[in-house]
């Protein structure tokens, strides 16, 4: 495996009396899709926010970018490094049009500092064409778009900054069948272009379809790092839920099936 573009080691994050992350390690290499898994409250979102700079980590851990130690104290730091994040709630400005949203915070300018709308719209058309997205007009406010269209716009926006790591939080959660396939295609295309992709998803089918590795968090700690190709569904579920005493094993004992989810990793 090539050297990681982004590596975190010993990252902790405390919110008041709650220790959301404890000594978490994580890394992603160029051209790799890493699924970040865990139950609700396991710390996935917190880890994403630490990487994205929305919630800086507590002191103690270290973040390496291209093997150089860096600090990510604000979203702008992460953006400058080349980390793009697409949150579940998309964070689009409803009153701006598609072009305005795509280039928000990253506008193309003419020499005297005015917006180069023509260049932005041209690049937006190019980009959306390359994603096989058809939207009647790029000048409608995004409030007028459907959920799938908004997701595509949010992903497309992250690509304009030429990122090297893209983090997607539940990108297919609200999408129809065709649009889900489109997003998965898109993730593979990003990987083929040599980007590191971090995929947060509860949908194991999606994870198995595109991810190379699955990093599991449980109660704010690392709970396993599995190569997808050689790991069974049950092993991953066991890591997510924690121990042999979990609803899945209870069910398999009850139904008498020979599920192998009882293997306790620790």
């Amino acid at each position: 495996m090539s050297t990681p573009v982004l590596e975190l080691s010993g990252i902790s994050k405390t919110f008041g009396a709650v220790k959301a992350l404890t000594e978490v390690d994580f890394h992603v290499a160029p051209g790799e899709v890493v699924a970040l898994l865990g139950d609700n409250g396991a710390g996935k979102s917190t880890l994403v926010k630490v990487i994205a700079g929305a919630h800086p980590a507590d002191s103690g851990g270290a973040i390496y970018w291209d093997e150089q130690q860096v600090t990510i104290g604000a979203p702008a730091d992460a953006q400058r490094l080349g980390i793009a994040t697409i949150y579940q709630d998309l964070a689009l400005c409803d009153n701006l049009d598609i072009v305005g949203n795509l280039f928000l915070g990253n506008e193309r300018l003419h020499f005297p500092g005015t917006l180069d709308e023509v260049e932005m719209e041209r690049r937006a058309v190019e980009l959306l064409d390359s994603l096989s997205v058809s939207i009647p007009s790029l000048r409608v406010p995004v409030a007028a778009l459907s959920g799938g269209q908004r997701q595509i716009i949010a992903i497309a926006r992250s690509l304009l900054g030429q990122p090297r790591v893209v983090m997607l939080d539940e990108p297919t959660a609200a999408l129809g069948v065709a649009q889900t396939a489109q997003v998965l295609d898109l993730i593979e295309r990003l990987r083929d272009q040599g980007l590191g992709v971090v995929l947060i998803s509860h949908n194991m089918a999606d994870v198995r379809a595109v991810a190379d590795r699955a990093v599991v968090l449980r109660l704010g700690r690392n709970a396993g790092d599995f190569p997808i190709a050689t790991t069974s569904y049950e092993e991953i579920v066991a890591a997510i839920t924690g121990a042999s005493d979990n609803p899945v094993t209870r069910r398999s004992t009850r139904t008498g099936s020979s599920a192998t989810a009882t293997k306790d990793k620790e």
Partner: protein
Amino acid sequence: MSQQTHVPHSAGEGQPENAPRRDPRLLATVASPSGWLQALRRNLRGGELGAVPVIVGLLLIAIVFQSMNDRFLSPQNLSNLTVQIAAVGLMTTGVIMVLLLGEIDLSIGSVSGLSAGVLAVLAVRHGVSEWVAIGAAVGVGLLVGLLHGFIFAKMGVPAFVVTLAGLLGWQGVHLYLMGGDGSINTSSSGPIAMLTQTYFVPVVGWFLVLLALVLYLVSVLTVERKRRLAGLPYKPLSEVLFRAVLLALPLVGGVWILNQYKGVPLAFLIFVGFVVVLDLVLRKTRYGRMVYAVGGSSEAARRAGINVDLIRISVFGIASTLAALGGVMLVSRNFAASVSTGGGAELMMAIAAAVIGGTSLFGGRGNAYSALLGGLVLGAITSGLLLLQMDTSVRFMITAAVLLIAVVLDAVSRRGRKTHARGGA
């Protein structure tokens, strides 16, 4: 926002080689006056009212008052009207910035009074040069605005409360500065007085009209040519010219009327100048885009790497600076600063003008020209009622009714936008 200029239009039948590919779902606008009329009707039904209700309102006001007093549309009255609206108009321009953020600034009246007080005390009591005094008054406005913005953005106090404290507090400072004097008279010949006493000879007015039209045509044609070369939807020449004529009508008409009296007043030019500059800043610069973004969704803006706090602080700074400039104009018109300067209906008029002009109270929607349009509506009503020798009480009631109509239109058009998939902010 200038939705109108963004709506792509096809080149119609017989497209040239590099004609943009158009989505078949998009309704085409036929490049003819009837086609534009259809598009206009579609926009209106979809809730994109634009400036139409205000212009209709202005025409109605003109017809009603002219029929009741034939001096209403006289060049002298219209010229006075443009000077009268300049002070509150400048304040409105600042309020629009704050409204675009989805916030409100209740202190602008007091800040304009404070600025008037600073100006008069420095220029008259301390004999400071009037230019320096003007600079100091506007500078005080800037500092006050930055303070409001800082408390709002960094400490998380609602803008409503911060500026409510400002409303009271700055009026207090204003009274303190004035000392025992109820009013301080300023020179009737210095730079301060010149601001509202200067009129330009006719040729200057015509030159400005020509300049505006040429700049408009050149910039629009350049953009449309670039869009055509980039393979994007663009407006045909006929439509550009049609729009230019629509722009030329009020410009030529206005300057023609103003020239029949004393010429274009400097005060009005300053007001319009700020409106135009602000419009360009809002539509054409990264800063303006950020203001709209913060107004639309501050969280989205923050995640896009925009320094939301800085935008908020700067917008409150600009709003108070413009309010202070409005205060300077008030002194200039009255040749005096009094304890009541800026303490009357100015605040309500400024906010009402912004809303009447079409800026949404809910943030993220509106443009700088609503200051001009809203100011003209309120100024025309005030001037008409004064001509008819109506009482202030009647003026307040009528202004309130107009404001309500504007807000209802805003709310109804929001609903229209939602059901017609144009996005209700």
